[in-house]
């Protein structure tokens, strides 16, 4: 992507704070001031471990959630505070694909109804919506003759194709895919990854591809953002982040992924982090990664590092006081 192209989506300091349970516990800042852009036709991968805020970020972008602070600008317009009615026309353009294909499809509705529903909501006629549903089924590799079947009659991979067809029904420009392949069998994941890549090429879609599987994200994305405890700790061109990770957390994350190659596994040097990710209800002061960081110094315990480039012209930003690609 050329850096001069106007972004399709622009997120600035987006923050999502949930009240503590029953008003007693401390509020939870699930997302803490994240900023990033997505260009038209671009795929941004968003990775991180459970509880890091990646799903919450996705839900804010499609405005299933209203951010408690910060802004979300879509196609030049701030949508972060829009109400239900004002959001309705935007729903055509911003769609979502979910992790568990079966639980995100209504078991009492036929495929025709599931795929056509967004079109009916947007004012299409019944006949028009059904005709379009047939087209969409073909587009995502389903057999159109199965249009009157129910979700339970489909395998997991096919059900995810239905979820994708539904997301594409209104012709969106940006699709947020939240762990779209992680509930699928390994042999089926590649089918869905290939499908999403083909659709992106054919339809010029932009994706925010949220996943914990770093190998899948590497395959599909142009740029990648790594989240830890509600913040982006590293973001940039995929080639840079994967080949030369600069944040100690990114380095540890990449080194922890098991490679399907026994010889490479034996030869490999792993950085094993101590401990678990801390709770977002009680984040550590300073850099939130410091309690697990092999490089932490005094400053890390008191000052939160800001995202910045580490060299002129570098296609990647990192939030670390001591970034570096050396061990």
């Amino acid at each position, binding site marked *: 992507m050329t850096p001069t192209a106007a972004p399709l989506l622009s997120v600035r300091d987006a923050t999502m704070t949930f009240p503590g349970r029953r008003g007693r516990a401390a509020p939870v800042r699930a997302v803490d001031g994240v900023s990033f852009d997505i260009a038209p036709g671009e795929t941004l991968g968003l990775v991180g471990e459970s509880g890091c805020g990646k799903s919450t970020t996705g839900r804010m972008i499609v405005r299933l959630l209203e951010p408690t602070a910060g802004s979300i600008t879509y196609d030049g317009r701030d949508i972060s505070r829009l109400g239900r009615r004002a959001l309705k026309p935007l729903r055509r353009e911003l769609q979502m694909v979910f992790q568990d294909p079966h639980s995100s499809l209504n078991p009492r509705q036929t495929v025709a109804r599931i795929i056509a529903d967004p079109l009916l909501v947007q004012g299409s006629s019944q006949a028009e919506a059904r005709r379009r549903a047939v087209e969409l089924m073909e587009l995502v590799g389903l057999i159109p003759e199965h249009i009157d079947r129910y979700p339970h009659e489909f395998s997991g991979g096919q059900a995810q194709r239905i979820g994708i067809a539904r997301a594409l029904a209104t012709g969106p420009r940006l699709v947020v895919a939240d762990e779209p392949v992680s509930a699928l*069998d390994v*042999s*089926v994941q*590649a*089918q869905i990854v290939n499908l999403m890549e083909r659709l992106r090429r054919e339809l010029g879609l932009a994706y925010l591809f949220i996943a914990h599987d*770093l190998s899948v994200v590497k395959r599909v994305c142009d740029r990648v953002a790594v989240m830890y405890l509600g913040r982006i700790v590293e973001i940039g061109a995929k080639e840079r982040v994967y080949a030369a990770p600069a944040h100690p957390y990114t380095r540890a994350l990449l080194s922890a992924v098991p*490679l*399907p*190659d026994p010889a490479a596994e034996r030869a490999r040097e792993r950085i094993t982090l101590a401990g678990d990710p801390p709770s977002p209800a009680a984040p550590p002061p300073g850099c939130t990664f410091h309690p697990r960081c092999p490089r932490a110094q005094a400053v890390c315990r008191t000052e939160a590092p800001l995202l910045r480039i580490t060299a002129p012209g570098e296609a990647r930003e990192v939030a670390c006081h001591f970034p570096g690609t050396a061990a």
Partner: protein
Amino acid sequence: MADEAPLLSVRDLTVTFRTGRGPVRAVDSLDFSVRRGQTLGIVGESGSGKSVTSMAVMGLHTGAEVTGSITLAGQELTGLAEGELNRLRGRRMAMIFQDPLSSLHPYYTVGEQIAEHHRVHFGSRRAAARRRAVEMLGEVGIPEPARRAGEYPHQFSGGMRQRVMIAMALACEPDLLIADEPTTALDVTVQAQILELIARLQQDRGLAVVMITHDLGVIARVAQEVLVMYGGRAAEQAPVDALFATPAHPYTRGLLDSLPRLDDADDAPLRAIPGSPPSLLTPAPGCAFAPRCPRAAAAAPAERERCARERPGPTTAGGRLVACHLPLHTPAEARKGTP
């Protein structure tokens, strides 16, 4: 090493469930064995029978018909009375599961649960069992074990709960540990910790480990021997290096090809396997993989017919087993992938 008798030996294991829609053969004529200190990886997708196999070995197959032979250190387990199985379970063989929270009792402290386990099997006194629980929590890397022993499962994180499960499983010093997707619910940095912990305990105690997983990366990291299951049967079994370098079964080849890899520079489309894993309710008469198999599809009509009609029996050569009418013979063929 090869001469040593296996600790666990499974012969012709078949597990059949009675269902409203007729009998379902979840595991069919399976053979495998594990020696002390060795890790056997069992890899498969949903419906492959990998978890049913582990439940059968543990004698936890309620309602299923189990035939064949399962021997642990020479003792036959199939047909044992429940009381005798209870004495072996936990004491000689133990199991850990994907979701530790559902395997731990929410009302008892983790210390009580581990101690209880020890008392049942060794008849140890309360104080001694309690000491053993704290010792085990320390051994699996839980900080401040004496204090944490007094806490309840919900007070532990996912990774710490899996450590508690491992502490409980190993408290009675079993010879065999069956781990069924033990790290699937965990984050990747925590997964690395748990796999390291299992490897260390295995080395210290000479445990035999059966690691059941869908993740070929985990298999590559921990296993010496690998069994690939498909549709309830063994597709292929081989030492880990041979399996990854020169897979003989087209399904194994297909799985390896379809994986996106971190160490891959190539951004060409993934070579996906078409279709989905088979339903056990309607088994194919021939090879379970035939409907998805690129080699069967490219074969001459007579061969293709054979794959569809005739179930391939396992053939063994050079310490490897493959159940396929059209195996990938030469290393070169295996490397370049299926047509």
